[in-house]
């Protein structure tokens, strides 16, 4: 059998292969040769064969038949064999092959070998791919080597110990005594790996962490020496002395100083020193500074140090090196919540990064920009962000649009600005806007009553040219349907009113219906809009009838259903049509989105938020539901239990609109019982478990004094309380509203909101008219769930008509007697 070819020959041969197939052929031939050579148990050439096998493995070809050979090599006496054998073991073997256990004995012997390099090989292999069984068996040997004076072995043993700890965490205790002297080493290699070992131990076990805290002074000293010592050629990298070690120590200090005041204080000086003295012209210096910044941010550092850290990050942002800017943006994103003001100072630089070419940098700059928007800078920031939306890659558009909507909602300085911003987003990125944005936008538009004409005009103009962006078209259709009369009558105050005829409006809506680009949902919107216009337009009703009847035979089932129902509305129920298609009422909320009403402190709204758990369609303002149900004839109405409107901005819009949207479409199911939409307004289960709608308990607590919650302009509201002994976290408040003026108060609506830890439920009032001269009262029941027994506070809103004008008032009730909530 001729001698197997050398590795170099093999490589040369393979490189001459011109195609993949040719290469495969060569490899297969060689594999066959190697296999037969293995069968012959040839000791001399085994290492050569395994080397070739490893090469082929690296190229991607299967090499598992060499695993046993690796073991044989490890068992051999020659260093060369062992070297290749261990390398092969690391590459070819892992925990999943049972074969690897056979190595354990070899490794054990080699760990005690006389040659340090053999010991090193064994440590290396164990540290790379040792399984937990192997680690358990050999941990003792590793620990012994950790205490040796040979620095070459010591550093390898340290990393091996890290691996052992990772595999078998219980063995951590075993290495504890050996760590005592590790930091006293002079050899940087050992120092480095020791710090890694200590880091691993501290990360894994809080006890170890506490134990090692006492090392902080020593670490600080080592770091100081590194910085202060002059040029030391062996560890120098670009003029800085052993930066890797510095970074490692900084990371360990971070872990030790976290949540611990004493350690943090001990580190303050050295961190400031590193931050100020490190050269920043090369990447190395920046790496150290970066680690320092991360450490400062994580420990309990004093504010001066934090500002220093953020300034360093700000400097990074101005650096030409993209990597450094990327790193700075990532860190700033992490700190913007806690050190908001300091980061604000660098806002303009961050905004500049939006224009960078690099995708990763752009993404981070975008996220950071959104985090920095606040009431003061919203106009400027929005301008930049809208420009960014225009020019950014498609993958960003959806996130950017959502972000802009959120920020605009929170900080809009005026309604007109808000609507303009939304329009801009819809027109630039209309096809990327998320689906849930549409209901939110619609709700927003309905809320800004005075802007209706302006809004509908702008939307109309927007889709005139191009109706392919679905979200835009949906919002526009809805608005045109609602406010088409304003559009046609040219009533806009905010800008030059345009002359639009009814036919033109219908043209555009019909084109939307016909267009292939319109999604099914969009078509639905358009059809409904056309239908609504039948009451708002005067001269084109016949045309509308025609359109609606055409779609009665549409293939799209949803369209067909709507068209058929609308048709029926025209034919049999024409008398109901005007009432049904009436203008949508403005959706009320206790907390509005305008900045005037919400005080943002650390991102939490101070005003109360109502959290309820009923199904979304169960939420609705009391009045609207009642009004609509009244319209529908009033027969078969199940008692509606209105809940106070939720003030969660995003969801409220969506849920309200879902319900109203449903009512819009399905309530016109003439012929089916009127109560079909109503059962969705089910009773929220949480407060009423086992309780009837009667508020009175049989086992009430001892009498709780009643209070006068509100007394102004002749309207007086009293609260009386009841609590149950069996369910002490529920307080039932009965309000009584009386009117001492000489005229009745009509359309009285009482709304209430409570802080987040409470839950509130409003039952229906007895009536909506408070007769004059205290001759009668309105009673209404409120149930409050107070599981945390916190002090009861409530904000109430009252609306009513009095003396011909609409009155509205907000008040806070703070004088609840302690017995009502304790």
């Amino acid at each position, binding site marked *: 059998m001729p001698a197997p070819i050398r590795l*170099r020959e093999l*490589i*040369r041969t393979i*490189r001459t292969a011109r195609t993949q197939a040719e290469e495969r052929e060569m490899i297969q031939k060689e594999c066959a040769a190697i296999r037969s050579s293995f069968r012959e148990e040839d000791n*001399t050439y085994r290492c050569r064969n395994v*080397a070739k096998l*490893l*090469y082929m493995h*690296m190229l*991607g070809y299967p090499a598992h038949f060499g695993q046993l050979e690796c073991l044989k090599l490890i068992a051999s006496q*020659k*260093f*060369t064999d062992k*070297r*290749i054998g261990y*390398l092969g073991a690391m590459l070819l073997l*892992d*925990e999943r092959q049972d074969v690897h256990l056979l190595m354990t004995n070899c490794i054990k012997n080699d760990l005690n070998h006389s*040659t340090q*390099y053999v010991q090193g090989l064994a440590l*290396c292999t164990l*540290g*790379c*791919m040792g399984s937990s069984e192997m680690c358990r068996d050999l941990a003792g040997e590793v620990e012994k080597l950790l205490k040796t004076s040979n620095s*070459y072995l010591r*550093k390898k043993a340290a*990393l*091996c110990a*890290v*691996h052992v700890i990772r595999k078998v965490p219980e063995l951590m205790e075993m290495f504890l005594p050996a760590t005592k002297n590790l930091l006293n080493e002079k050899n*940087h*290699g050992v120092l*480095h*790996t020791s710090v*890694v070992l200590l880091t691993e131990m501290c990360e894994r076990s809080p006890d170890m962490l506490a134990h090692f805290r006492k090392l902080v002074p020593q670490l600080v000293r080592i770091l100081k020496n590194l910085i202060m010592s002059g040029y030391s050629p*062996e*560890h120098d*990298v670009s003029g800085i002395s*052993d*930066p*890797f*070690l510095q*970074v490692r120590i900084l*990371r360990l200090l971070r872990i030790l100083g976290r949540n611990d005041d004493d350690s943090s204080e001990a580190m303050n000086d050295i961190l400031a020193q590193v931050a100020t003295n490190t050269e920043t012209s090369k*990447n*190395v210096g*920046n*790496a150290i500074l*970066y*680690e320092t910044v*991360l450490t400062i941010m994580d420990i309990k550092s004093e504010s001066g140090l934090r500002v220093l850290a953020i300034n360093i990050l700000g400097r990074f942002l101005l650096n030409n090196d*993209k*990597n450094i*800017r*990327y790193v700075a943006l990532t860190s700033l994103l992490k700190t913007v919540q806690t050190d908001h003001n300091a980061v604000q100072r660098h806002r303009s630089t961050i905004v500049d990064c939006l224009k960078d*070419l*690099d*995708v*990763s*940098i752009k993404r981070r700059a975008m996220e950071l920009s959104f985090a920095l928007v606040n009431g003061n800078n919203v106009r400027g920031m929005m301008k930049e962000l809208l420009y960014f939306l225009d020019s950014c890659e498609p993958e960003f558009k959806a996130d950017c649009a959502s972000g802009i909507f959120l920020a605009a909602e929170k900080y809009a300085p005026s309604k007109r600005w808000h609507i303009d911003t939304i329009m801009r987003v819809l027109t630039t990125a209309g096809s990327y806007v998320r689906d849930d944005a549409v209901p939110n936008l619609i709700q927003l538009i309905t809320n800004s009553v005075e802007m209706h004409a302006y809004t509908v005009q702008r939307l109309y103009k927007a889709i005139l040219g191009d109706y392919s962006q679905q979200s835009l078209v949906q919002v526009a259709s809805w608005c045109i349907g609602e406010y088409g009369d304003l559009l046609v009558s040219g009533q806009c105050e905010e800008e030059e009113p345009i002359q639009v005829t009814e036919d033109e409006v219908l043209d555009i809506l019909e084109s939307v219906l016909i267009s292939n680009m319109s999604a099914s949902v969009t078509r639905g919107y358009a059809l409904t809009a056309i239908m609504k216009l039948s009451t708002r337009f005067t001269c084109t009703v016949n045309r509308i009838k025609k359109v609606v009847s055409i779609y009665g035979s549409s293939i799209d089932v949803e369209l067909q259903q709507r068209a058929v129902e609308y048709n029926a509305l025209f034919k049999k129920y024409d008398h109901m049509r005007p009432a049904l298609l009436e203008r949508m009422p403005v959706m009320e909320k206790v907390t509005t989105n305008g900045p005037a009403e919400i005080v943002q402190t650390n991102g939490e709204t101070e005003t109360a938020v109502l959290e309820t758990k009923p199904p979304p369609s169960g939420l609705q303002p009391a009045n609207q539901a009642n009004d609509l149900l009244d319209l529908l004839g009033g027969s078969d109405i199940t008692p509606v239990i209105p809940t106070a409107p939720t003030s969660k901005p995003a969801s409220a819009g969506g849920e309200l609109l879902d319900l109203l949207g449903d009512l819009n479409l399905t309530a016109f199911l003439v012929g089916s019982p009127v109560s079909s939409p109503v059962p969705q307004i089910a009773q929220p289960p949480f407060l009423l478990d086992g309780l009837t709608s009667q508020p009175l308990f049989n086992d009430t607590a001892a009498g709780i004094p009643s209070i006068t919650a509100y007394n102004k302009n002749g309207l007086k509201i009293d609260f009386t309380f009841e609590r149950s002994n069996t369910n002490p976290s529920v307080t039932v408040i009965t309000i009584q509203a009386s009117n001492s003026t000489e005229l009745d108060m009509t359309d009285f609506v009482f709304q209430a909101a409570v802080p987040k830890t409470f839950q509130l439920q409003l039952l229906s009032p007895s009536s909506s008219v408070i007769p004059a001269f205290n001759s009668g009262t309105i009673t209404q029941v409120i149930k409050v769930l107070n599981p945390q027994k916190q002090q009861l506070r409530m904000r109430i809103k009252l609306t009513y008509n009095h003396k011909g004008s609409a009155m509205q008032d907000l008040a806070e009730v703070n004088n609840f007697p302690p017995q009502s909530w304790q």
Partner: protein
Amino acid sequence: CERGIYLFHNTKLRKLYFLSQSEDTQQQIIRETFHLVSKRDENVCNFLEGGLLIGGSDNKLIYRHYATLYFVFLCGFLRNELGILDLIQVFVETLDKCFENVCELDLIFHVDKVHNILAEMVMGGMVLETNMNEIVTQIDAQNKLEKSEAGLAGAPARAVSAVKNMNLPEIPRNINIGDISIKVPNLPTFK
């Protein structure tokens, strides 16, 4: 910790080191890494967030481009990225020292040596030694050890084959030179 270290040439992919992952995952990861990295422009930053295969956004790819080669490190989330860039630089400089003006061919033909050098620097995904001189010293010592062994091991084989080829005639039993008579011992015949 480092999860993988790769070396890319423009067209060929090589992996140098891997933390335990199955064979197929490794191959897929290599392919995806290669695609991601080779598409990169020259003046973008050297960090890439992992795609789905590379363990998701928890892992980062940090690479450096030297001539026709890419050195790519796959790291867990917590690593200091700038530090890794330095590590790559030290690695390449060490290779340079060991191979004396290392070029691509050196890395191809001496893969095992590259592995050995890497083993002195990184162990189990953690950095072991960053002092170039130290590493080079260790490598040299180990290479010397290897060489000395190969010498000893090679010699007997060479001697045997040399004698085999000598074509000795029959061995004389008695050598008589003048008055001296030397008796030749019975030697086994060479085959």
